C-alpha cells in the first residue's frame, strides 16, 4: 500500500518520526518530472496546464486578503482558468501570501509536497524576497527561496489583484514556454532544501518528504 523504496541507499531517514510512524509513511525521495518525449505533446500538455491553474486555498499571510477580490466578481480570475481548491491534491499553484512564519512554513512545506506535479509557486509581496516588513522578526523567514522553489515573484506591499492577474498571465506564459521547473529544482536540490527547512523548523515531527 505504501511505496517503500527498495534501494536503501536512496531512502529518507524520517528521523523526526517515531518508529511506529515510520512504518506508516513513505521514505521515498521525490522524483523529477520528465517531459513527454514528443515536443508537440509536451506543448499541448503545457497549454492545458497553463489554462487550468488551480490555486491552493491556503492564505499563508496577509497577501491572502487580495485573493478574495481576485476570485470574486470584480477581477474574476476564473475566466483565466484559475480556481481555488481546498486540497493540495487538486491544486497546481501555491500562492505564498507574503511572509511565512516558522509555524506556517512547516504547513507550507507539507502542503507543497502533497501537491501533484507539475506544480508552481508564486510568491507575493516583498517578504518572501528579502524579509520585507518583518526582516528582523524572530518568527518569519526572510528568503523564501531557501525553503521552497519559487517560480515567480510579484513584489509590492501589497500586490494588488491587478498585478496578481498579470502575474498569473506571466506564469501561464512561462508554463507554455516550458520554463517553470521549480518543482524539478526542488527534486534536484532536495537535500539542500530539506536542510534549510530543518534549520528553522525545530520540531520536525513529520516525514522528510510528505507524499
Amino acid at each position, binding site marked *: 500500500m505504501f511505496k517503500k523504496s527498495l534501494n536503501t541507499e536512496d531512502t529518507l531517514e524520517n528521523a523526526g518520526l517515531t518508529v511506529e510512524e515510520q512504518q506508516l509513511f513513505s521514505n521515498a525521495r521525490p522524483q523529477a518530472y520528465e517531459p513527454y518525449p514528443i515536443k508537440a505533446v509536451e506543448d499541448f500538455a503545457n497549454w492545458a496546464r497553463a489554462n487550468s491553474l488551480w490555486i491552493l486555498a491556503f492564505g499563508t499571510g496577509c497577501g491572502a486578503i487580495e485573493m478574495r477580490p481576485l476570485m470574486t466578481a470584480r477581477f474574476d480570475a476564473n475566466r483565466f482558468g484559475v480556481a481555488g481548491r481546498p486540497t493540495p491534491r487538486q491544486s497546481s499553484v501555491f500562492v505564498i501570501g507574503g511572509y511565512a512564519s516558522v509555524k506556517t512554513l512547516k504547513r507550507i512545506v507539507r502542503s507543497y509536497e502533497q501537491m501533484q506535479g507539475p506544480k508552481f509557486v508564486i510568491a507575493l509581496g516583498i517578504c518572501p*524576497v528579502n524579509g520585507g516588513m518583518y526582516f528582523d522578526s524572530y518568527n518569519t523567514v526572510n528568503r523564501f527561496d531557501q525553503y521552497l522553489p519559487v517560480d515567480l515573484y510579484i513584489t509590492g506591499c501589497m500586490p494588488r489583484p491587478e498585478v496578481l*492577474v498579470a502575474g498569473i498571465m*506571466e506564469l501561464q506564459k512561462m508554463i507554455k514556454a516550458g520554463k517553470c521547473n521549480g518543482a524539478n529544482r526542488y527534486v534536484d536540490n532536495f537535500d539542500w532544501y530539506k536542510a534549510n527547512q530543518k534549520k528553522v523548523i525545530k520540531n520536525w515531527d513529520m516525514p522528510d518528504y510528505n507524499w
Partner: protein
Amino acid sequence: MSLRDLLSPFYVWQRAFEKPYTTKRPTLDRPGAPAYRGFHINITETCVGCGSCHTICQNHAIDMVAVDEYVGRDGDSGLRPRFDYGRCCWCGLCVDICTAGSLRMSNEYAWISEDPGDFHFTAGIDDKPWQENALGYRRAEGYHLYPPKRITMPMLPVEESVNTFDEVVRGYDKEQAKKEADRCVECGICVATCPAHMDVPDYIHSIRDGDYEKGLQLMYRTNPFPATCGRICTRRCESVCPVGILGEPVAIRWLKRFIVDQVDKKDYPRILNEPIGESDFKVAIIGAGPGGLSAAYYLRQQGHAVTVYESRASAGGMLRYGVPSYRLPDVELDKDIEHILAIGVDIKYDTEIGRDISFETLLEDNDAIFMSTGLSVPSSMRIHGEDHPRVLSGLQVLADVASGRDPGIGKKIAVIGGGNVAMDAARVSRRLGADVTLLYRRRISDMPADDEEIDESQAEGVVIVQQAIPVEVLDADGTERVCIKWGEAKMVDDPKGGRPRPVLQEDRMHTETYDCIISAIGQSSDLGYLSSEVQDQLAIEWGRFKPVEYQHTMMEKVFVGGDFANRTADAISAIEDGHHAARGINRFLNPDAFIKAEMQDE
C-alpha cells in the same frame, strides 16, 4: 419556514440584468490612483543624498550608494538612494521626510520577476518604466515630518540697535535652542562643507540631550573659536543644509553660539582638559588672528613650545579690529582667546616682524613657522581724487572704533563697497549718528556680504544704492566735505558665461557731497616683512600664497594659512588653515611616526 424564505434566493436572478462588476482588462484598465504609493521616482538632480530616507526607513530598504556623476557636487554627498523591493513596504515615509523634495512615488505597481535578486534599483539612475510617470504619491502641501521653519532669533529692536554697540542678536534660550536643534536631520553634509569640518550634527545632538559640556568638547576638536564662530561665521554649512532646501536651514551658527553661552569661561579647563603632549620643538607663529591662534592651540596640544608674534596691542586680528562689537563683543572673543592662551601658548604683542625681529632670525630660531598675517591693506579704487583727505578706508574706521578712537566721519557719509566690511562700516557709522548711503556697483543680490547683514543694515536705515559705479572724487566747498561722482550701471550678460557685469552708462552721472567717503572695496596682503628672495622662495602667486599639502609652502620650515592663503577669506577657513597647518607641522616635525603609522594602516 415560509414560502417567501424558500423563494428569496432566486431573487439573485434580478441582478442578471444589471451591469456586471467585472473589470474587462484588469491589468490595463486600472492604473493606480493619482496619489497611489507605487515604485519610487527620484529626481537625482535635485536630490542631495542626505540619507534621511535611509534613516527613516524602518525596513532598511534603502541603501545610499555612490553615483559617480554627483560626487563632489557642492552640498551633495554624492550618494543616491537605492531601493530594495524585497523590503520596501510602500509606506512613503521616505517621500515625507525627503529634505530636497526630490523623492516621490509613481502610481505604477506591477513588477514581476522570476529572479528574486532582481528587486532593487537606484531610482532615477537605473532605467525603469515608471521613471517618467507623472502621477503617484507626493507629500501633501502642509504636511511635514520636521518643522520647516526656523525658531525666530530674538534681536534688539532696530530703534535700539541703531543707537548702541550692544550685541544685536540676543541668542536662544534653552527651550528655543532645543527646538531648533530638533530640526536637524543629522545628515552631516554640513560637515563636509564647513571648512573646519566641525562635527555639526554631533554638537547639535548634544543640545537636544542638554549636554552642553559635551557639545563644547566636540566643537574644540576642530575649532578653538566657537564663541566667535557662533556669532560671525559665514556659515557655509547653513547654505548647504538640506533642511533649507524646502524650508529654512537649521540655525547652525546660533546653536553653536548657544552652547558656548551655556558654559561659563571658568569651567573651560575642567571640561576641555586638553592633554598636552611632550615635545622639544619650538614653533613660531606670525599673526595672532584666528589662523595663527588656531594653529597655536593645536600645536600646543602636541607639546611644542609655541610663540605667537602680534604687531598690535591685542590678539584677535580682524576679529577684534575688523568686526564691530555689536556683532562680536570683545568679551566673547576674549573667551576664546583666553582659553587658547591658558593651555600655554606664549604671545608677544606689539612685535612686528621685519621691524622688531627679522623673519630670518625667526626662521633660524624655530623648528617651524606658521604665517597668517591676513589681508591688512585696503584696496584702492584707482579713481581720480581718491587721495582726498576725506576719503577714509573702511578698515581704518572699524579699527578706530574697536580701539575706542573717534574716526571723525561726520554726519552724512557714503560707503563704497558691497562686502561685509562695507556693511560693518555703514552700520558702525549709523551708530555714530551719521546718515549713510552705500554705493554698490552691482545689484544687492550680487553682494558678497551676508544676507542678514544687508537686511539688518537696511533696517537700521542704511540707504543702499545699487548699480552705482564711482568714477571720480572731487573737492567740495570746505575741507571737511567731499564730492563723489558716480554713474548708473546696467547689468549686461557676459557672453562667455559668468555672472552679469555692470556697464557704466555715461549719460547717467550723479554728483553728491558728503562729509566723508568710506571706501571698503577689498583688502590685500602686506608682505613687506618678507624680503623679495623669501617671497620668491615661498612661491606667491596672484598676490596670494598657494600652499601645497598641509599648508606647507615651498620653504622647508614655513607653513601659511588664513585670508592671504585661501580664496574664501573668512574666519572659519583661517581656523581650519591653522588647524591643518598644525597637522602638517606635526608630520613635518615627526616624520617617522607618521610614516610608521601609515605603513601600519596599509
